[in-house]
């Protein structure tokens, strides 16, 4: 099971600002190891954010995103105490879902 993400969600005016730090190697598939063998690509492909069950962000990522990626976004609405859920799926099919409460 992959390590958890860190999520912070705060109400800013009439929207909610969400900051997510994900735990992932994000191998590009372009690097070689000490033996000269290509290190296979391994990266997050899909990211979905939901607020009270409704999708507020959906993204397709590729190998150009950093290791341990940091994602920040805003959506209209959201109140203190609401739940925000972030799910990512990588190209190996591994998946991680984390939840945070809006503060």
């Amino acid at each position, binding site marked *: 099971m992959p*390590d958890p993400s*860190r999520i912070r969600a705060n109400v800013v005016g009439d929207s909610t600002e969400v900051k997510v*730090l994900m735990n992932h190697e994000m191998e590009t598939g372009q690097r070689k190891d000490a033996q000269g063998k290509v290190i296979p690509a391994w990266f997050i492909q899909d990211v979905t954010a939901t607020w009270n069950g409704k999708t507020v*962000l959906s993204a397709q990522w590729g190998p150009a*995103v*950093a*290791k*341990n990626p*940091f994602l920040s976004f805003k959506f209209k609405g959201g109140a203190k105490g609401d739940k925000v859920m972030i799910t990512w799926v990588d190209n190996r099919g591994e998946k991680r879902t984390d939840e945070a409460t809006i503060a």
Partner: protein
Amino acid sequence: MKTSRSGRAARLVAAASVVALAATAFGQSNTADEIAKYRAALQDGNPAELWEARGEGMWKEPRGPAKVSLEKCDLGMGPGVVKGAYTQLPRYFADADRVMDLETRLVWCMVKIQGYTEADAKKNPFGAGNDRKADMEALVAYVTSESRGIKMNVPQSHPKEREAYALGEKMFFFRGGTHDFACSTCHGEDGKRIRLQDLPNLTTKAGAQKAYTTWPAYRVSQGELRSFQWRLNDCFRQQRFPELVFGSDASIDLTTFLAVNANGAAFDAPAIKR
């Protein structure tokens, strides 16, 4: 949506700084400002938090042959007290009859409380990617994060603590190795640098405080959280010194020298660095 490709960003910032240098001739201080801006931009999403979270879990989880958590570990302020503990390390521990820094004390607890062998507790001090994650660096991240904002107050009351400081000071100025280097060769004057990185002058109070209170740190270029033991180890490598043994007296003495010099400044790590 905003994503950061940190490694690439580092190169971009570096490239941008070079251009700025050529175009405006503001010189070194301008480059340093740009690097400071880059650090500030990254601070918000510092991946060190991931290590802190993993370390906190590890601290509380029953582990090792004895299946016990580290929550009874005495870091100097009583068993289980983590808050502020790092600001008073290295210090003398009567039970070990030795001055210990955080890493050596963690090894001590892993051996005495959790039943690890010393070799097992020390075998992977510095992580390398997903396949070789270092437990030590995660634990260091958690413990140090609990000292953020607290003033450095490393004790010098026990004779062995004063001895460690004196030896550390000697080592700092000791020239040796194939390049006839000492720590002070690079860290004894203002305005020295390696490539674009300004080096702190550790012989001044302000320099020592700024440097010591921002380690451990997440190194963007390595994608790893690095402890102070790692920092010293890598300085030794860059000086072409013999490898600094993890948890050795030499490493603790040098840490003591630098930590005591940083006394009075608020601790501000785990930080993020290039």
